[in-house]
């Protein structure tokens, strides 16, 4: 019940925001804020609730479940369930929802009602993705969240928004269809072997299939998630979409939507196809490592601030892919950690980029320079999050990256070492960002107001969370899938055997 509420509050809030703005212009943001506020409070309440429930043994990992018949013809049910991984991602979504409402507060003046409608619906879709345990329902939400996101980019985006939004939509939807095909194939394979037509995650978990079938079906899933995550050859939509989206859009894209891809890998690809995933893991790991380095490298090359941050996402999510396909407790803990930490730190960088764009009307770093003396608070926050991005210990990203690579080292020490080169590459781009934007002489004579109270509250809270994640990451690490309790885990022992 509570799970459906999580989704429907946002859906209803979105509609209400739209309506309200027609009657009382300017009220949409308050409605939106209230909605995400309720959402956040609810998730925190859930978390506290479950944190105490965790103390009790034998929970099977699932906290809450909602199940209702939907399309009995196909064995499709409205099946939501929440375990720690979903919970933590839902919390992230709610928090970033709050952030994105806050950062749109003054940025969005035109058509605010429709804007918040889209924003909240995107969040609703994302939460649906994190909670759905019916493959049909999952796909439903998966596709659903793209539409409002498309509108966010296409209507409130920057100069090149049409190109970016269409590219985003075609990549995401097109790959989604491959996943649909794969879902159906899996369902029918299951049907053939058991005679039960169902889309239920648990039922499909132990589907027997031939190795080649498994590989093909898994690839269908993988493509969809690889586009969203993104994994390197399929990342090209991301820089455009992130760059052109309005601030809130960028925050949600980077913080939440990319996570849905990683979540998909974590929840579906590996558990549903353990053998195929094992077979495919070297390729995925190689792709992930490529992504880590390539993203870091390209981030350095950018002159557009938002584009730089966008490429850092490619790099960071590459780590997540590594963590997932290494599939051992350390790397998985790291992957979940990295997802959360990346959501916060990159989100914050986008907020900063948005503030800069709002005040200077440019994102070109060659035109900034020397902003430290103009807006020291903003610059300090920029420095802070740049450092978080480069993975300094004490911040969340470090915990994630370190654990991922440590886990990966067990599986593939060479690629782990190669990926570790990103530690250096990330310093290069993060410091380039700081140097080009904040340091140096204020040659362009910027006269800009520093952070307002609202912006400070947003950024400070994000900074506090980043530090908290870095120094006391345990709650998030506990949220990683407990591979011992999940049936089709890739045996770590096997891998160890291979590694040596």
């Amino acid at each position, binding site marked *: 019940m509570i799970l459906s509420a999580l989704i429907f509050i946002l859906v209803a809030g979105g509609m209400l925001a739209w309506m309200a703005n027609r009657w009382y212009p300017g009220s949409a943001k308050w409605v939106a804020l209230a909605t995400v506020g309720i959402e956040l409070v609810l998730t925190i309440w859930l978390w506290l609730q479950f944190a105490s429930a965790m103390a009790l043994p034998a929970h099977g990992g699932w906290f809450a479940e909602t199940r209702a018949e939907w399309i009995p013809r196909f064995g499709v049910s409205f099946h939501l369930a929440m375990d720690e991984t979903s919970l933590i991602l839902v919390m992230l979504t709610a928090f970033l929802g709050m952030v994105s409402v806050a950062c749109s507060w003054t940025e969005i003046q035109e058509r605010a009602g429709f804007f918040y409608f889209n924003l909240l619906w995107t969040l609703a879709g994302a939460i649906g993705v994190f909670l759905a345990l019916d493959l049909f329902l999952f796909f439903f939400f998966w596709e*659903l969240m793209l539409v409002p996101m*498309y509108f966010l980019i296409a209507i409130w985006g920057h100069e090149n928004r049409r190109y970016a939004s269409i590219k985003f939509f075609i990549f995401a939807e097109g790959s989604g*269809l*491959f996943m649909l*095909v794969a879902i159906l*194939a899996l369902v029918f394979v299951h049907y053939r072997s058991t005679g039960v037509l169902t889309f239920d995650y648990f039922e499909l978990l132990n589907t027997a299939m031939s190795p080649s079938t498994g590989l093909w079906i898994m690839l269908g899933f993988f493509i969809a998630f690889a586009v969203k995550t993104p994994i390197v050859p399929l990342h090209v939509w991301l820089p455009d979409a992130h760059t052109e989206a309005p601030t809130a859009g960028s925050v949600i894209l980077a913080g939440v939507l990319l996570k849905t891809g990683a979540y998909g890998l974590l929840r579906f690809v590996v558990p549903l196809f353990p053998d195929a995933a094992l077979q495919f893991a070297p390729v995925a790991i190689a792709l992930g490592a490529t992504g880590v380095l390539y993203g870091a490298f390209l981030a350095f090359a950018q002159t557009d601030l938002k584009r730089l941050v966008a490429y850092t996402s490619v790099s960071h999510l590459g780590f997540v892919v590594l963590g997932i396909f290494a599939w051992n407790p350390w790397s998985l803990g790291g992957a979940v950690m990295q997802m959360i930490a990346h959501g916060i730190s990159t989100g914050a960088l986008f907020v900063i980029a948005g503030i800069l764009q709002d005040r200077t009307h440019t994102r070109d770093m060659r035109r900034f320079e020397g902003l430290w003396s103009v807006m020291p608070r903003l610059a300090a926050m920029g420095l802070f999050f740049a450092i978080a991005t480069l993975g300094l210990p004490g911040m969340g990203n470090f915990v994630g990256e370190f654990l991922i690579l440590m886990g990966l080292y067990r599986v593939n020490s060479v690629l782990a070492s190669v990926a570790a080169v990103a530690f250096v590459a990330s310093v290069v781009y993060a410091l380039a960002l700081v140097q080009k934007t904040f340091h140096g002489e204020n040659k362009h004579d910027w006269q800009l107001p520093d952070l307002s109270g609202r912006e400070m509250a947003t950024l400070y809270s994000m900074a506090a969370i980043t530090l908290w994640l870095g120094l006391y990451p345990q709650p998030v690490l506990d949220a990683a899938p407990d591979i011992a309790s999940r049936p089709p885990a890739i045996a770590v022992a096997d891998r160890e055997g291979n590694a040596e």
Partner: protein
Amino acid sequence: MNPPPSALHPDFMALSPLILLSGSAIVVMLAAAFCRHPRPVMMLTLAGLVLSFASLFLPQGIGSRQITALLILDTYALFFIGLIFAATFVVAVLCYRYFGGSESRHEALYILLLLAALGGGILVASSHFASFLLGLELLSISLFALIAYPRFTERPLEAGIKYLILAGFSSGLLLFGMALVYAQLGTMQFAKIGTMLAAPHQALELYGLAGLALIVSGVAFKLALVPFHMWTPDIYEGAPAPITAFIATVSKGAMLALLLRYFLMAGAHQSQPITFALSLVAVTTILVGNLLALLQDNVKRILAYSSIAQLGYLLVGFLAFGAMAAEAVAYYLAAYFVTMLGAFGVVAVLSRGVPEQDSGSLADYAGLFWHRPWLAGVFTAMLLSLAGIPLTMGFIGKFYVLAAAISASLWLPVIVLVVGSAISLYYYLRIIAAMFSSDSNADHGKEISPPVPASLAESITLAALTGLLIGLGIYPALLVPSLETMAVQVAGLAEHSTLAYVSWNGK
């Protein structure tokens, strides 16, 4: 001797929808002759349609019923007849103000509309070459006149002529094909032809095969499958928007329903050449339709190409054969009806006031969302449905088709379908992006004629369509069980298993 109504001949009961519709056509004709005012005529038309639609539910208890050799009225046929009548109802509502409302004299239009619907109904129910021919021609000839109804304007006229020639040509092909098949097999009943073709020892001679091929060509023309698709954009663009909706839905849907029934019956999937030809056609149709729409600037033409592609998707579901295919096609067709009616409905509502040409160009839609949000919202929903985005019937339809195709392991068409859908996103998004673009200064200069508000009837109709689109998109279970029984019934004639999805056992 006045037999009480209950003692009416059951055939008569079963035929009541068609009879009522013919009756109302005559009544409308008489009314139009005496009362030269469109409003009552339209009312009568709508009443007739409602009555006929209501009578659909009468013979339900009787079940499958063969009425002479010519017609079969089972749930399958009734479902599609109902669909056709409903679509005609919507078209009639859209026509009224489109053609000038009470000021203009367009009463005759409704006669033609009713006749065309009747033709469609007969087509769906036909089980014999003769009824097939009659239904088809009733539909086609009414359409010639309907398309060219604004007869003093250029484009409708051109479209009418083109359709006339090409439809005549394809009728010729169809009829000649029928004659050849008849010459080979000695029967004109579909059911018998089907069983004869399905019989393993039956080998057709050359002219029999040629006959079948010609029939397929004739049907493919109506369905606008590649390479018989070329008329579609021109006719869609030229015809008045509501009539375009009618062509896109009724004329295609009726033919497809018929085709599906007899393909199932003939067990055509066992024939390698037919499956091969169909897959080829489906694949090319999807690709060609989507590619043609890519950079098109005329919304009606985009929708035309899109409808070509949609038929390609349908054909993929079709290829799966069996009950699942019937179900998938039926659902997809219903979704397609709703969507196309909605989309062309929006075009029709926007078009009034522009006499020569419907508001087709993409520029007419720029910023639509900001001055007519509801209309643009409906259009967006329709386009998203065509693109197969969740929350809409189009999504469930595509899901259904994919499910059917995958359950039959039709990998190539499935992949093409996916690729085609990805391509199609581009042009749907172009329209949507245009509607949401905020070039407010651009359309200030354009507002020569203030937009005509949609009439109440139109608004209700569009709202109802949207409601249906989303309602059945979210909760398809409302429709699915009836489709399921229907499909099992029609497919059960060929294969006597209740769960005859596919022939995977053979794999």
